[in-house]
């Protein structure tokens, strides 16, 4: 397991949302503004990394029979910590994400990674797995937010960028975003949960197409190499 391979897996070939297809509920629910997407993505990244490290560290002393119960306790602890910290220091984000922060407890990305990866792997790789899987999740959220916000409300960077009082970044979620075309022309259905399904479906299709294509390319290259080898032998 090297870092480069893990990076590629987390972001592309084993992306949690587009390939493993886990953690979809929050993905569809909160990707309406860029502010929400980045906030949720980073929260998951932090929680996932912490949980991965802790679970990997205690993997040898956890009895197999109660491992799920212990995973859930560890995950719930970190989620509650992040929830309290957000409420105290970034109340706008905690309000915008609402119930979806506490719901990270049952987000299958975290328990999925714990079960599939950390309970067998040492701390180092588990840490990077958390970071890269978290990044992969964040990337998907950002793409979905940008698409849905643009087509649904004609806006870019809602909550994060304020142009009304000069161009600046707002970290408290009050920025109105950049209005690219009037909101009334937007297909507001894309801001609804239905639009979440639609956007996610299209993204997945693109991803599967790209993955298949690259797999075919690899196969073709291998075939060509084998043929050349054969010719050389002859």
């Amino acid at each position: 397991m090297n870092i480069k391979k893990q990076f590629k897996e987390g972001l592309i070939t084993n992306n949690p949302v587009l390939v493993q297809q886990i953690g979809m509920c929050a993905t569809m629910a909160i990707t309406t503004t860029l502010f929400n997407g980045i906030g949720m993505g980073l929260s998951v990244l932090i929680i996932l990394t912490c949980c991965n490290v802790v679970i990997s560290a205690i993997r040898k002393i956890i009895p197999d029979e109660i491992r799920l119960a212990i995973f859930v306790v560890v995950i719930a602890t970190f989620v509650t910590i992040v929830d309290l910290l957000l409420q105290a220091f970034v109340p706008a984000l905690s309000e915008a994400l609402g119930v979806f922060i506490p719901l990270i407890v049952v987000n299958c990305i975290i328990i999925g990674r714990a079960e599939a990866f950390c309970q067998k792997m040492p701390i180092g790789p588990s840490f990077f797995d958390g970071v890269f899987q978290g990044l992969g999740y964040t990337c998907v959220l950002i793409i979905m937010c940008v698409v849905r916000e643009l087509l649904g409300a004609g806006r870019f960077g809602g909550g994060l960028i304020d142009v009304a009082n000069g161009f600046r970044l707002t970290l408290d979620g009050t920025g109105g975003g950049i209005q690219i075309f009037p909101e009334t022309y937007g297909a507001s259905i894309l801001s609804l949960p239905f639009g979440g399904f639609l956007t996610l479906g299209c993204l997945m299709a693109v991803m599967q197409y790209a993955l298949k294509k690259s797999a075919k390319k690899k196969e073709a290259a291998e075939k060509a190499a084998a043929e050349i080898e054969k010719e050389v032998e002859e």
Partner: protein
Amino acid sequence: MNKILKLTLVLFLVCAIAAGALGVVNELTYRRIDAQQQAKTVEAFSAVMKADGYEEVGFDSAAFPTVNSVNHATNDAGYVVTSTFSGAQGNITLAVGVDNDYKCTGISVIEHSETSGLGANAASTGEVGVKFRAQFVGEDENIALSKSGGSIDALTGATITSRAITGAVAESIRVVKSLG
């Protein structure tokens, strides 16, 4: 038997450590969270009715189960009513200003867990939220959504939230009327 004991012990230890960690974090954050909640309530009150202070008054809590408190503005401008009722996703806590002619002077959402981008717009500081809340100013207890024959336009994709808030505003005006 030993196995069971071991499992229990491990799980207990993990839970104890987790509880300890949570206690520490809670200790570090609860003051800030409380202060923010307090500041939000004060802000909400002054947003719906300008006054130097508010005095809580009694009301018939059996007849108005959703109402939390009725506060008389010290400058006699009217009352601020807070109520908690169920929205589309969870409970909404709302502050409603009611003047002496039993008209709404403004509403402000103190707490909610509505869907981000839809029902949550009722509380947002953006254009959509401001416009939505401004509609309530000057309305009386017969307030209703435009699809029910009233004059309040519901938020896009958030009819349940809009209806709940409209109902709470009417209830708030009625509780002030009941005070006489």
